[in-house]
């Protein structure tokens, strides 16, 4: 029954999406359309049903219902319980169901909560949201039905990819999907505003919290995914420029640009078309990522069970939504006036500069990700990696960090740079001093040094907007910005430090041997077999110490899973305030002269690598504080407006006369 209920809920959701689309379109065409009132309830009920479908699948995985094909092919009755649950979205169909559930949920929240927009714009927005949802329901039901039954229940499931049997799978995909799909609201709002020509500061204020929330989730999801890859793959790296990683980075870059341009629109009524364009691009990048991951046109470590037929289906959806949105944009954008002007040396000027830089990085990443697709059309197989991405994105990232450090100090509309010459001189001196100091100490690559210098300058610059202000009166949203910018600095510091100062050692060692890495001594005590619930492993016992410090035991493993069979290395990490010791044990490597068995051991000391993810968390915190701040202001304004209206009503009753219209 579970599977049938789930499928029924999905079909009903699809039907409601049709209703939402039609009602939205009616509401857009005429204010008096009677059908229009159904758009909001259709979205809300749909959110409930799609979420229900997801929870039903979750339940089927929890009880390992092997009559459902998806469970039988992706789970196993002897798998630990938490991985049974997370296995729900560790496959194509389940993750697509999570995707549409989040899509429906954000549409429902938008329909249920948002009351500030003109009703016609709202109708158009909900219509677009219903249209987008409909396509993804069709995709799920027609080509990737997660509730498909097996004719005969399987005797046992075939298990989950062991790399996915990790707590990372519980956190990384759901948060990332909320971010991806949350951007659909920004997309629908942008389309609604474009169609009804209502690209106003009020519209920007409505859009901003949605963009911020989606961006917070994306940031968290990308950070979690990066840390997961770092400790789970055992390769010692935290970003590989893999097509699927890029697929998550591109919406993030677009969303980052969008949340800054939407602020300009809200505060200054400028950048109207640009904001609309970014709203379209951000969600388009999410959909593009889905296509790249699931169609199999690109090769990646994140391969889902790929299927060209599904790829064709998603490509048609992309054509409809991205192509359609861009066509509407091409037709309508010139009807939107440009908005207010501003000079280059102003807050807007800095924001525009960084928007362009972010977009340029987005273009670099997009080009690098799609380039193999282009060359493969001519039968040339290439793989684009760090040697392209790192320098190419740095060309734009470094000026961006520089402007980011001083931009918040500038005034809106027009400013004289000489007003902030002290700050400029201070930050410039910091950058030059750090480059000089590091260059004296040793030979390091250029990019990490620049990264270090700008990270420290940015960390100082992030707090400069607070200088000379009464801290109690600084708006909450400003605190959010300060914190988020500081988080970027912290993260950048971690990245630069890791790339510049990591020490690595690869050796074949027998029990009793000692290896030295960056002041750490690592002694292999023994290697012994251990067994887990669904794996067996060789586990190394290592005694690790630094200087005269205490000795710590570390136990990296080389695991063999058996359902499905696969070998993975479980790295051992030792975290200290100034970095991480990262150890991986490999295969047996013959015997030494004394006849002792030797093992491959790979040891890294990564100074301040953890700052990458601490920085990410600070950014997330900044984003949350910003949302809270915006909502506080909004609630206050609403209460104030309600009170004013009440007073007017009372006066009208008392006086009975004509009350003059309040001046706007």
């Amino acid at each position: 029954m579970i599977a049938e209920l789930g499928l029924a809920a999905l079909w009903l959701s699809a039907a409601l999406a049709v209703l939402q689309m039609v009602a939205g379109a009616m509401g857009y065409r005429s204010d008096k359309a009677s059908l229009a009132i159904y758009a909001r309830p259709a979205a809300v009920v749909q959110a409930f049903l799609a979420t229900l479908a997801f929870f039903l699948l979750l339940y089927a995985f929890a009880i390992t219902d092997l009559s459902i094909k998806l469970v039988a092919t992706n789970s196993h009755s002897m798998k630990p319980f938490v991985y049974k649950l997370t296995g729900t979205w560790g496959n194509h169909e389940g993750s697509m169901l999570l995707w549409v559930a989040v899509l429906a949920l954000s549409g429902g929240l938008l329909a249920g909560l948002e009351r500030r927009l003109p009703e016609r714009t709202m109708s158009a927005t909900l219509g677009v949201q219903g249209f987008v949802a409909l396509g993804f329901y069709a995709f799920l039901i027609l080509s990737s039905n997660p509730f498909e039954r097996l004719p005969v229940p399987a005797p046992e499931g075939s298990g989950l990819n062991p790399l996915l049997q990790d707590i990372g799978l519980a956190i990384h995909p759901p948060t990332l999907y909320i971010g991806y799909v949350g951007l659909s609201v920004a997309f629908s709002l942008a389309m609604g505003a474009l169609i009804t020509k209502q690209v106003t500061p009020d519209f920007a204020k409505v859009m901003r919290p949605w963009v911020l929330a989606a961006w917070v989730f994306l940031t968290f999801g990308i950070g979690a995914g990066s840390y997961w890859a770092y400790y789970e793959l055992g390769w010692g790296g935290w970003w590989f420029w893999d097509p699927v990683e890029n697929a998550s980075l591109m919406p993030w870059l677009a969303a980052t640009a969008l949340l800054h341009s939407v602020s300009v629109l809200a505060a200054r009524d400028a950048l109207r078309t640009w904001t609309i364009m970014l709203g379209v691009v951000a969600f388009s990048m999410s959909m593009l990522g889905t296509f790249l991951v699931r169609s199999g046109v690109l090769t990646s470590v994140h391969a889902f069970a790929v299927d060209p037929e599904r790829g064709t289906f998603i490509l048609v959806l992309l054509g409809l939504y991205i192509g359609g949105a861009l066509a509407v944009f091409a037709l309508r954008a010139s009807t939107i006036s440009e908005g207010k002007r501003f000079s280059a040396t102003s807050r807007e000027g800095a924001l525009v500069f960084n928007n362009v830089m972010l977009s340029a990085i987005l273009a670099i990443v997009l080009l690098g990700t799609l380039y193999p697709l282009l060359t493969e059309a001519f039968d040339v197989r290439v793989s684009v990696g760090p040697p392209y991405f790192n320098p190419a994105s740095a060309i734009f990232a470094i000026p961006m960090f520089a402007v980011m450090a001083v931009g918040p100090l500038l005034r809106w509309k027009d400013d004289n740079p000489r007003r902030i010459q002290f700050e400029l001189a201070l930050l410039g001196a910091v950058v030059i001093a750090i480059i000089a100091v590091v260059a004296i100490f040793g030979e390091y690559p250029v990019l990490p040094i620049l990264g270090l210098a700008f990270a420290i300058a940015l960390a100082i610059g992030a707090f400069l907007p607070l200088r000379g202000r009464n801290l109690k009166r600084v708006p909450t949203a400003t605190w959010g910005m300060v914190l988020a910018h500081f988080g970027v600095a912290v993260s950048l510091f971690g990245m630069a430090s890791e790339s510049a100062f990591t020490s690595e050692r690869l050796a074949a060692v027998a029990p009793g041997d000692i290896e030295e890495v960056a002041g750490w001594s690592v002694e292999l005590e023994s290697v012994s077999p251990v067994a887990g619930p669904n794996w067996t492993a060789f586990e190394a016992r290592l005694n690790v110490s630094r200087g005269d410090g205490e000795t710590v035991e570390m136990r990296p493993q080389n695991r063999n899973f058996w359902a499905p069979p696969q070998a993975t290395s479980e790295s051992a990490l030792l975290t200290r305030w100034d970095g991480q010791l990262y150890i991986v044990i490999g295969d047996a490597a013959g015997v030494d002269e004394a006849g002792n068995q030797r093992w491959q051991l790979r040891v890294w000391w990564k100074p301040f690598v953890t700052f990458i993810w601490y920085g990410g968390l600070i950014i997330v915190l900044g984003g949350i504080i910003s949302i809270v701040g915006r909502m506080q202001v909004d609630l206050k304004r609403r209460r104030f407006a309600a009170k004013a209206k009440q007073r007017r009503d009372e006066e009208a009753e008392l006086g009975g006369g004509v009350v003059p219209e309040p001046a706007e």
Partner: protein
Amino acid sequence: MRLVYLVPLALFLFFAGLAGYMLTQPKDQNVPSQMIEQPLPDFALEPALEGMPGASRSDFVGGEPRLLNIWASWCLPCIAEAPHLERLKEEGVEIVGVAVRDTPQAVEGFLSRHGNPYSRIGSDDISELMLEIGASGVPETYVIDAEGNIRYQHIGDIRESDVPMLLEKLEEVR
């Protein structure tokens, strides 16, 4: 309408055309083993079933080329390929089986239900041979020549149409 607003649409259409073209191109997703054209690694596996011999590298040396079939009683595609293995046996091919992560009872049950095409069955309890030989899943079938070299790897279950192809490969390496 300003022409500059058409640029994003044009770029997207170019991408969509390219991606659409690439989707129609056949693409081989399987990862071939690095061990092809290499000698079989040295191994000796215990029998997976009482009364049948186990499997080791020396069983592949001398005589005719053989097939090495990696399977398991818990694997669904292995049921699908069972009749085709039977066909190959009828054609006079010697098939050495390796049962991965299995128990004697389960192996016995599987063979009594779906037939036993094997001359010997080794038991690979920790996927040791699987990893060494470069198999990425179950089932996989390898053509081994009479000197014990791996000459061909078939990934996935053997379909009806694969039978003549495998017979041809066996003939080629003779």
